């Protein structure tokens, strides 16, 4: 199997360099066509924010594409010096390449182990290459197999369990308190980037109403317009909080905007029913943690959300060993099957040739003995010849299969071809 995976990732290259090496769809298309035409190989190009990888296959046993050539090629495409790229690249060849792809797709090699995006990104990369016709028998089989391995890892281990983004953890907490959201009011306090990101997650719950408040009313209007919410003047924060079921706070205020005293005196008396969930993802914190009681008010600040995130990541580490075991078993399965497939036609030809020889020897013999043998005796002789043939071929066929596994298939194929006088 002539396969190479060459690339760089978050471990080998800084984000500035990864940004320069990243491919958009148009650039990726051009690169794939160029690579395929120049080297006559199968190729797939994976480009995410954490890695850029070229998977190339084919071109014969002495296929020349290596790290130096990959650096030159990437430099040419991106207008960078190959010498700057070369030290960042790693190379995984043959079986190691199969394993690397499985680990990447199964999210074992990700910055956050178990994250769910990478399998989709690998699938997209493969589909893009397939549409351009730059994949062939090896990469088609390999990528289908790799995506199946990733699915096995996700379903058979707990590596993808839990959420690791702060916004998702926040929504998980909200769902512990509320069951329905069509009758809920979400209050956004502040208009920072984090607010918009978490709001996206909260919007997916389809709340009845979104209120937005900010010291600057114009910013509140801007955010409210973007999310279909209603701006509220900063002075009405207490009333807005009294109406809200979920509050998302992300101001840049140096002091807490809602000390316990203010909450107890100005907000609590106006609230009659239901729990208020406060997601305080501001640093420094906007809400006094003392208002949290897990009943009327559930307050989760950035530390709480990060702690759960860390717990989930730590939890996922436990599943690394079983996931690696799946990868190892599947890599072996793939390479064995691929090599068998490669020596398959030769084995078939060998069997056919020896069948012909057996028939050539057996037919005259049975002709000579015609009339002297009972049908049972005739059958016994035929069976004995078949047994002899099988025993004779057992060694060469096993050797062909084993040589395939050990990567010596070409030499073995040539040897068997010569020994048995087979056509190439």
């Amino acid at each position, binding site marked *: 199997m002539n396969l190479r995976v060459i690339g760089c990732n978050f471990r080998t290259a800084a984000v500035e360099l990864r940004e320069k090496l990243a491919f958009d769809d148009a650039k990726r298309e051009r690169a794939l066509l160029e690579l395929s035409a120049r080297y006559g190989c199968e190729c797939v190009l994976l480009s995410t924010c954490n890695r850029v990888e070229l998977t190339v296959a084919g071109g014969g046993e002495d296929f020349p594409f290596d790290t130096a050539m990959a650096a030159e090629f990437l430099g040419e495409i991106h207008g960078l010096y190959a010498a700057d790229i070369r030290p960042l690249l790693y190379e995984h060849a043959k079986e190691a390449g199969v394993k690397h792809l499985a680990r990447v797709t199964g999210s074992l090699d990700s910055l956050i182990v178990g994250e769910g995006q990478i399998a989709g990104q690998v699938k997209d990369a493969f589909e893009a290459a397939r549409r351009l016709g730059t994949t062939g028998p090896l990469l088609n089989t390999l990528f289908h197999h790799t995506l199946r391995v990733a699915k096995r890892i996700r379903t058979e281990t707990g590596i993808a369990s839990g959420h690791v983004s702060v916004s998702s953890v926040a929504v998980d*907490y909200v769902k512990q308190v509320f069951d329905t959201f069509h009758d809920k009011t979400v209050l956004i306090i502040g208009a920072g980037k984090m607010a918009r990101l978490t709001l996206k997650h909260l919007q997916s719950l389809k709340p009845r109403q979104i209120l937005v408040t900010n010291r600057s009313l114009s910013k509140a209007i801007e955010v409210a317009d973007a999310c279909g919410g209603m701006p509220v003047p900063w002075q009405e924060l207490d009333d807005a909080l009294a109406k809200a079921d979920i509050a998302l706070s992300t101001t840049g205020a140096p002091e807490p905007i809602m000390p316990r005293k203010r909450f107890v005196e100005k907000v609590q008396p106006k609230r009659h029913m239901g729990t208020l969930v406060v997601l305080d993802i501001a640093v420094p914190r906007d809400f006094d943690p003392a208002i949290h009681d897990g*009943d*009327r008010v559930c307050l*989760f600040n950035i530390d*709480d959300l990060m702690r*759960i995130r860390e717990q989930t990541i730590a939890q996922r580490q436990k599943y690394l060993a079983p996931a690696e075991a799946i990868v190892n078993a599947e890599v072996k399965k793939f390479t064995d099957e691929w090599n068998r497939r490669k020596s398959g036609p030769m084995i078939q030809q060998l069997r056919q040739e020896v069948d012909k020889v057996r028939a050539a020897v057996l037919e005259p013999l049975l002709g000579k003995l015609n009339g002297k043998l009972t049908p049972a005796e005739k059958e016994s002789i035929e069976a004995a010849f078949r047994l002899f043939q099988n025993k004779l071929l057992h060694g060469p066929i096993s050797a062909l299969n084993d040589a395939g596994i050990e990567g010596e298939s070409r030499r073995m194929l040539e040897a068997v071809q010569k020994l048995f006088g087979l056509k190439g």
Partner: protein
Amino acid sequence: MQNVTLACFGLSYLLALLLELARLKWPKPGLRTTGLILGGAGLFAHSWFLAVHQPSPATAYGALLAVAWVLGIFYLYGSLHHAKRAWAIFVLPFVLALVGLAFVLVSTDADAQSFALESGQRFWGAAHGILILLASVGVCVGAIASVMYLIQARRLRKKLNPLGGVKMLSLERLESMNRRAINAAFPLLSVGLLIGVLLLKSENVITPDWFSLKVLGTVGIWIVFLVLLYMRYAVHLPGRRLAMLTIFSLVLVVAVLIADHSFARRGESP
């Protein structure tokens, strides 16, 4: 099938509960299916037992088994409907506790009590009994929801991993379940209690005992319900305190169910 005993369905429920607990440690789908089959078998045996032996719901034994039977249905429905939640873990202990109490009481009063009502008042006696039993079921459901509420609120108070541990319903859902159960139980209890008072006041009742545990307890539950509704709708008491009050009312309900009935007298035929 005549040999179906209390132990048969009690053990089935117990095994179903143990399997559910095991599922917390080993989340295999086979355990859930087996647990459901055992729970379903327990409920079937329970139904069969009630149909064959027909224990009077006016006796502590019969009342406990009847309430346990309705909760058994509640368990099975909830386990199927809330497949991803640890429903059985909260409902089955209540069912088992009621069956266990009935098991303890079986030899003391199951066969001994009869009723001192005239035949003309039987209908009202039955209506009184059914309404009180349904109210008791309501209190049990409210108490189950309350236990879950307290655990969920504790998890939120401690800010535990929202996706870790036992899978539970949201605070809002549990609070709503509790509220609906109490809202439904209160009118049932009120009417049941009123019928009971009128029956006791009627001259035909032999040895009316206004100060029996049964009567006082039922009035006590009614007052607790009234307090619960007042606290919820007028004072807006936090959910945790309402949950505790509901659990307290369950204790009263069980005490009332176990207590001797004012309409009953030992050793006499109706």
